[in-house]
């Protein structure tokens, strides 16, 4: 088992290296000249040439890659072409809000998706199942960005219930010392015991989180349903019933636990989806996370920034999958 974990981790590192290589070489096929971007619009050719050398773009590709790797290990992702700031530094400010959003959405996905899938499986081919299936398939079929627009329309414009965007009300930001320990606002404000900030942050998070969690909700519900259906058909569930165990126990304990392996794996996948969905909706909600960051970077071909976000997301995703795999492998009760 230990060996499996070590193997799995080393494999993760290998995949990571591959991911780095792919992102790096991708950036080298871009048709635009990063040096020109670096010096900004209306720059002279001389300035561009100087920047080319400064950025090491005149060296052969493998040298550049070597340097890139070296920098990476020193925690240096280069500087954004647009803002000239170190990408790492920018990521540091943009990642926590996104993480917060992803975390919140994943929780939604779990608390809505799993019961949905379970009830669907329990009442297979009955109206409830049809409804749940339609809902979960519908949830994964909705264009996220479109949903975002309409949620804004409904909850801000029509109902005036929830804020349009941002992470915190500007006025609250001016009035209170906004805590900054982890960068996760909800968490930090709880540490501080500042409930005004907490509830305001929560209010701001609701719309983006709901939007983003739609896909994972559907995904988790669908996967839970199909995993459970498979499990319900197994002899050991029939057997459990034949021993006279309560239906609740059979479903919520026996069957659900058996599907835990699938659920954990799906959750890892669904976090991947939430992560990337933030790219589509953060800008709409003016959410100061890596989603907004990459959306702007894409518009201006800021390749170190794109690469930074890509690498971060891929790392997060790989680690997540790794953890999921290890949990599944470690716990004999989940391993089947």
């Amino acid at each position, binding site marked *: 088992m230990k060996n499996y974990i070590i193997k799995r981790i080393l494999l993760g590192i290998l995949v990571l290296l591959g991911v780095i290589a792919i*992102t790096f070489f991708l950036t080298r*096929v871009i*048709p635009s000249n990063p040096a020109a971007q670096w010096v900004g619009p209306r720059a002279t050719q001389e300035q561009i040439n100087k920047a080319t050398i400064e950025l090491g773009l005149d060296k052969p590709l493998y040298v550049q890659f070597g340097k890139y790797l070296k920098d990476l290990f020193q925690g240096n992702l280069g500087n954004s072409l647009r803002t000239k700031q170190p990408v790492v530094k920018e990521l540091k400010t943009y990642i926590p809000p996104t993480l917060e959003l992803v975390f919140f959405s994943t929780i939604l996905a779990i608390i809505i998706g799993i019961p949905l899938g379970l009830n669907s499986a329990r009442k297979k081919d009955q109206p409830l199942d049809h409804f749940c299936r339609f809902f979960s398939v519908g949830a994964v079929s*909705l*264009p996220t960005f479109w949903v975002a627009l309409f949620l804004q329309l409904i909850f801000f*414009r029509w109902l005036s219930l929830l804020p349009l965007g941002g992470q915190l009300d500007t006025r609250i930001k001016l009035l209170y010392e906004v805590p900054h320990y982890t960068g996760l606002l909800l968490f930090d404000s709880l540490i501080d015991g500042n409930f005004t900030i907490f509830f305001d942050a929560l209010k701001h998070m609701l719309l983006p989180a709901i939007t983003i969690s739609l896909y994972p909700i559907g995904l988790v519900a669908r996967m839970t349903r199909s995993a459970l259906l498979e499990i319900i058909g197994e002899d050991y569930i029939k057997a459990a019933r034949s021993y006279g165990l309560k239906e609740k126990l059979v479903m919520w304990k026996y069957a659900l636990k058996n599907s835990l392996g699938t659920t954990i794996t799906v959750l890892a996948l669904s976090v991947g989806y939430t992560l990337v969905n933030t790219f589509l909706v953060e800008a709409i909600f003016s959410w100061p996370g890596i989603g907004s960051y990459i*959306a702007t970077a894409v518009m201006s071909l800021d390749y170190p920034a794109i690469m930074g976000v890509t690498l971060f997301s*891929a790392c997060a*995703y790989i680690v997540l999958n790794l953890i999921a795999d290890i949990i599944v492998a470690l716990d004999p009760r989940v391993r089947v």
Partner: protein
Amino acid sequence: MNQSQLIKSLKPKYKEFKVSLFLLKKNRLTKMALYGVVLLVLIAIIVPILLPSAQHIDQDANPQQKLLQPSLRHPFGTDELGRDVFKRVLLGTRISLQTALIAVGMALLIGVPLGAVAGYFGGFLDEIIMRFTDIFLGFPPLLLAIAIASFLGPNLRNAMLAIAISWWPWYTRIVRGQAVSLKERQFIKASKAIGSPPRKIIFKHIIPNCVAPVIVQASMDIGGVILTIAALSFLGLGAQAPAPEWGLMVSTSRNYFLNAWWYSVFPGLAIFFTVLVFNLLGDGLREILDPKTRKN
């Protein structure tokens, strides 16, 4: 093969078909999804032929008529340049279906053989292929497509390519899994015992037996790909104006959506409907093609 042989050899296929049809009938949601898909395909094929002005869609701009409310003349209203949203949504069907089909097709072409080879031969080759796939799977969904599309430059062809590149590993994985379990099946052993070369085993035994899961996955992926294309277009990485691509339309309509809800609603609904229909179909197909359901 002469004609009578051909007819005879088709008969069992017909029976299989009947089984599928029965299961389909039982599954109302899937049946509706199938109608939906047929409808979409018809729209994609017929509308560009029927609409004489489809060739001149470029000339449709008529800004005096901009952002008109839905009416009999313009059932979905008009857009910011006075073009009929209904017509553009209809014409967009072809773009979406076509790109999705091509992208999925490309992904299949890369993914399926690789998976079969990896699974069948195992060992070192398997290791290499699967580590390579792992790397591609190491990206969260959609992210690689975004990265590739943004680096290749924004247009629909590149978006398609980007999607295919980020999608094939899923097929490799599925097919490999199948191949590994098939390899242990006795009919493959029997074929080996006969002395069939690996090429024949892969193409006659392995790939045909992967068809069901691959079809299920592919039909669901078409939905996913359409959504991805729309997302890429939304980010400005897909289709280029004035192409009537749904994602692009939603993206553009963002600027008008407080004044002209219809401009956002209908292309968005079109995406939703199409993706939904393909997802439902895939879901249903999974049940229908599942050997467990099929056995009896």
